[in-house]
Structure formats: structure tokens, C-alpha cells
């Protein structure tokens, strides 16, 4: 019996630590990207996969009871709410952007690939 409890602990701890690692990746992305719409890409990762792994680890540790169901409901709610809030934030950013030419790179379609236009030095975005 003790062995089974140790296996449960190890599985739960592995999932929890994986979720925390995804939070670290999210934070690195948020600090390294240079524009909000890029940062949102990193931030959405923690909202879905990060909290999903953490809650799954806690469910494994908690066992088969009502608390686990509530933890699963948190994941379910975030699956629905995270895309909605991301969409709203992106729309806020795009609407209130006063100087979009500073933030978007203009590409040219050539032979089916998007490339930098000639005679123009690459912008440092």
C-alpha cells in the first residue's frame, strides 16, 4: 500500500513540477518578446497548459472525490474564458494602436513565400 501511495506522490509531483516549468517558459516569453501581441502568445500558454498540468497533478494527489471535480471545473472554465479574454485584449490593442507601422512588419509575397521587401533594411521590431 505504501508503494502505491509513493507512486501517486511521484506522479502528482511530476505533473505539478511540469506545470511550474511551463509557467517559467511563459515568464521568459513574456519578458523576451517585444510587443503585446507577441507576449500574449506566451501568456496564453500558461493559461491553458500550465494551469492544466498543475491542476491535473493536484487531482492525482487529491484522489477520487468532490474536490477533484471542482479542480477539473477550474480547468474547464479556463478553457472557455482564456480565448475570450485573449481576443478582447488583442482587440483593445489593435483598436488603440496609434502607430501600427512601428509594430507590424510589412512582407512581400514572392514564389509563395513571404519575404522582406527589397531595398529596405529589416526593421528591428
Amino acid at each position: 500500500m505504501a508503494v502505491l501511495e509513493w507512486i501517486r506522490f511521484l506522479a502528482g509531483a511530476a505533473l505539478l513540477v511540469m506545470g511550474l516549468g511551463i509557467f517559467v517558459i511563459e515568464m521568459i516569453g513574456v519578458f523576451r518578446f517585444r510587443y503585446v501581441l507577441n507576449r500574449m502568445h506566451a501568456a496564453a500558454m500558461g493559461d491553458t497548459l500550465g494551469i492544466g498540468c498543475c491542476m491535473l497533478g493536484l487531482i492525482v494527489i487529491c484522489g477520487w472525490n468532490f474536490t477533484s471535480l471542482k479542480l477539473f471545473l477550474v480547468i474547464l472554465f479556463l478553457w472557455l474564458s482564456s480565448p475570450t479574454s485573449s481576443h478582447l485584449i488583442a482587440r483593445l490593442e489593435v483598436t488603440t494602436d496609434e502607430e501600427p507601422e512601428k509594430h507590424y512588419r510589412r512582407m512581400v509575397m514572392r514564389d509563395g513565400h513571404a519575404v522582406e521587401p527589397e531595398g529596405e533594411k529589416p526593421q528591428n521590431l
Partner: protein
Amino acid sequence: MGNNIPGLEQAYHFLFVGALVFLAAMVILCLIRAIIGPRIADRVVAVNMMGTMVMVIIAILALFLKEGYLVDICLIYAMISFLAVIILTKVYMGVYAECMQHKGGRILRAVPPKSESAQPGAVGIEGTEPGAGGIADILPDKKQCGEEM
């Protein structure tokens, strides 16, 4: 958790306390991002991330203290954090629209088409057709925006 098994109780304690301390450090980093974020959307994203991490903290605390009802607070926190993001974005869009109305201009400044974007085959990275106003084309008009808010 870990009842009557030597070592397992200490292991759970170590895991939970370590995770809590780690998440506290991440929340402080989120706060730094919210302070230095140059745009409003940066701050809203950072607040959203903080909400996610606080949810994990509450869930870990619920298991750590063996108080199952704390998970209800976690669920309510998720809903309030979602509501906060919606209201913040709506308020800032309303503020921006009012600001633009005071200036008397069009709410969304049309981007003058660049010279190189007039050539055939050029596409903007945002997926709109170039030469026709760029990003401003996919945005709602002033009248639509007013009705929406």
C-alpha cells in the same frame, strides 16, 4: 495524504511549500511586467497571468491545509479575474473612443498606404490586402464602435 507512511508526509510538505514559494516569486515577476509594460494591453495581460498563478496557489493551499472548500474560492477567483479582464478592455476602449470624439477626428486613424505596398502581391502581416488602408480596414468604424459600447 501520506497518513501513517514514514517520509511521505514530509515529502508532500516539501513539495507544496516549494511550489508555493516558487509561485510567489513568479507573481512578483508578473507584477514587474505589469509595472514596466509600456502599453495598457501589456498590463492587462500581466494581470491575467497573475490571476492564473494565484488560482494555482489557492488550489495548492486547499490541499495543503486539507480544506476542500478553498477550491470553491479558486473557481470564484477564476470568474472574477475573467470579468476583470472584460471590464478593463471595455472601459479602455470606451475611454479611447471618447478621447477621439473630443479630438473630432475619425476614431481609427487610417494608415496612409505605403509606396511599396502598392505593388501587386504584397500582403500585410496581419493578412489584410495592402494598399487599401492596412490595419485600419479590419477595425470597426466610429459609428459601429459607438453602438457597440
